[in-house]
């Protein structure tokens, strides 16, 4: 509740800041301090200190899982602000409004991680989506950005329509919006139809195949600084909503949807990884890699056990931090192709080293957080005792993914070239180093996160 209200309030403050404050540094400082306050408030709530006691009529439930997830998201956003906030200046003149929209998105994230009613799920997903359509199209003079925004908007509106239809059917069958689980038996066909519609719309939001077609174009067309935000924080938030929905509401029907989710997972893994191999631009490769990572996260939805919940949290942290780091480096470059990274290590040894760690984590190499999160996912799926082919397939695809992540590393260290000259300030470098440190530490001590889930 703390975070929910504070993010909304800071959204309004940032909105007003753009005409009260003239200096961009001041706006940025305000945003960063706002983020710190939100994070602190959320951590306090995890310790049991709630500022606002509001009777939500059991529509929002802030449990450990959602609070911990919120903290992960807020830390990631803080890191994102520290690394990339300066790059938002290049997008357009509405500097304060970009922060306002991002705070509103975070408000939606807190809602979609803690909903206990389908209404709140809808509101959360919409509060996430609408600012994103705007941020995607915020580079107004760039036709690609406009196209991406319109595409995202139309498809997003369509999937929201599916979601509403699903909610309506579920409401028709159960007579309630609250996600207490389907208890009626035999399960009416209305519930199944509603569940399918909700599944498809959520699969769209997390860009799982075959609902992924918007992802590469939108991620590629959007200003890179916002792609970084979209591909990380928003995506994991949609996953948490997905997980909560299918855990709370459709948990009793697991045997009905498990095969379908397994198929979606396999297709997502296959399409994401195979297509990423053929990309020439690192930005587009990262878009496809985000699809393949979505495939791994889908495994948590599939398994839906204690391991899956722990794993999804760990995965969110590992994936968000690493991807934000890579995008922060990518934004400094002018040439987004693989060749742009040639001889990057000679030019910027420190940045190259941190980027390597991020890439290793995404590829799932041991001693990084990425490895452990993938391990947790596979453990969760194996724990269900069914569909072992999915485990094997996932491992195979993880191996494929190593290829395209290592292509960047190879370009940085082993290819000859001029190397792009980039300006990286000292705080920027140190933040990256800190980020890489966190990723390695999480890879060794995952309990730092999982501990919070239970104590």
């Amino acid at each position, binding site marked *: 509740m703390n975070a929910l209200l504070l993010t909304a309030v800071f959204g309004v403050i940032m909105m007003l800041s753009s005409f009260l404050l003239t200096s961009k540094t001041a706006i940025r400082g305000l945003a960063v301090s706002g983020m710190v306050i939100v994070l602190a408030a959320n951590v306090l709530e995890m310790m049991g200190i709630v500022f606002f006691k509001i009777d939500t*009529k059991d529509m929002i439930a802030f449990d450990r899982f959602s609070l911990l997830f919120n903290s992960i998201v807020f830390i990631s956003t803080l890191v994102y602000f520290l690394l990339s906030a300066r790059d938002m200046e290049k997008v357009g003149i509405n500097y304060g409004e970009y922060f306002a929209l991002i705070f509103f998105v975070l408000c939606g994230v807190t809602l979609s991680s803690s909903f206990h009613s389908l209404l709140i799920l809808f509101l959360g997903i919409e509060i996430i989506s609408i600012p994103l359509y*705007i941020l995607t199209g*915020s580079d107004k003079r760039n036709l690609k950005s406009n196209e991406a925004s319109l595409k995202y908007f139309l498809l997003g509106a369509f999937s929201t329509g599916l979601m509403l239809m699903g909610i309506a059917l579920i409401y028709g069958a159960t007579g309630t919006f609250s996600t207490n689980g389907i208890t009626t038996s035999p399960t009416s066909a209305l519930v199944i*139809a509603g569940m399918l519609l909700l599944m498809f719309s959520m699969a769209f939001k997390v860009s799982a195949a075959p609902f992924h077609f918007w992802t590469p174009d939108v991620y590629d067309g959007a200003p890179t600084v916002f792609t970084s935000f979209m591909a990380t924080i928003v995506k994991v938030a949609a996953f948490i909503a997905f997980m909560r929905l299918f855990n709370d509401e459709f948990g009793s029907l697991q045997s009905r949807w498990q095969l379908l989710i397994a198929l979606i997972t396999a297709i997502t893994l296959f399409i994401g990884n195979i297509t990423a191999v053929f990309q020439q631009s690192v930005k587009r490769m990262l878009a496809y890699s985000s699809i393949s990572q979505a495939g791994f996260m889908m495994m948590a939805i599939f398994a839906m056990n204690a391991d899956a919940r722990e794993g999804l949290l760990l995965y969110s942290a590992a994936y968000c931090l690493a991807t934000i780091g890579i995008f922060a480096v990518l934004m400094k470059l002018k040439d987004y192709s693989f060749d742009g990274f040639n001889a990057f290590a000679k030019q910027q040894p420190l940045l190259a080293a941190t980027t390597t760690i991020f890439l290793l984590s995404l590829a799932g190499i041991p001693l990084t957080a990425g490895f452990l999160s993938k391990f947790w996912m596979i453990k969760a799926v194996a724990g269900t005792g069914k569909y072992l082919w999915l485990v094997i397939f996932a491992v195979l695809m993880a191996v494929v993914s190593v290829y395209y992540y290592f292509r960047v590393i190879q370009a940085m260290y082993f290819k000859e070239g001029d190397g792009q000259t980039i300006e990286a300030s000292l705080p920027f470098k140190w933040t990256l180093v800190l980020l890489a440190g966190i990723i390695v530490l999480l890879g060794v001590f995952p309990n730092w996160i999982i501990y919070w889930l239970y104590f």
Partner: protein
Amino acid sequence: MNITQILFWFLSALTVFSALMVVVSKNPVYSVLWLIFTFFCISGHYIMLNAQFLFIVNIIVYAGAIMVLFLFVIMLMNLNQSSEPKKHRWLRMAGVVAGGCLLLVLVAALKNIDIKKQVAETNTGDIGLIGNLGKVLFNQYVVPFEISSILFLSAMVGTVVIGKKE
């Protein structure tokens, strides 16, 4: 069949027909006009359920505001049949198959509902009257109601960001 039933079937047939015409019409302006007509038919259903407030809101919001903006844009763009890009035959087939699947699922879902138990409250229902609706909205559903203000605020900020001249 009493008058209510006759009206219901007439309105339903009209709704389905006009909704089909939205899709079938070649000219986008006609599509929008049929859509407006569809909204009126749906509003008619609200009246039959004694939900007068919903009836009015449906007209104000959809027919009076949103669809007018649609008409605005479509009329100004001056779209006509010739400017519509030709689609591949297989793409159309895929659309038909996908839409047909959705129809199949929905029909299957609606087919075996126990309709007998659910009786539409044609004259006695009062949940759609403004007083009752207001009480429900501001008691039980006050949290989502307030949260939706964040949604609208973010949409407004977004509109300014997109619309402002640089």
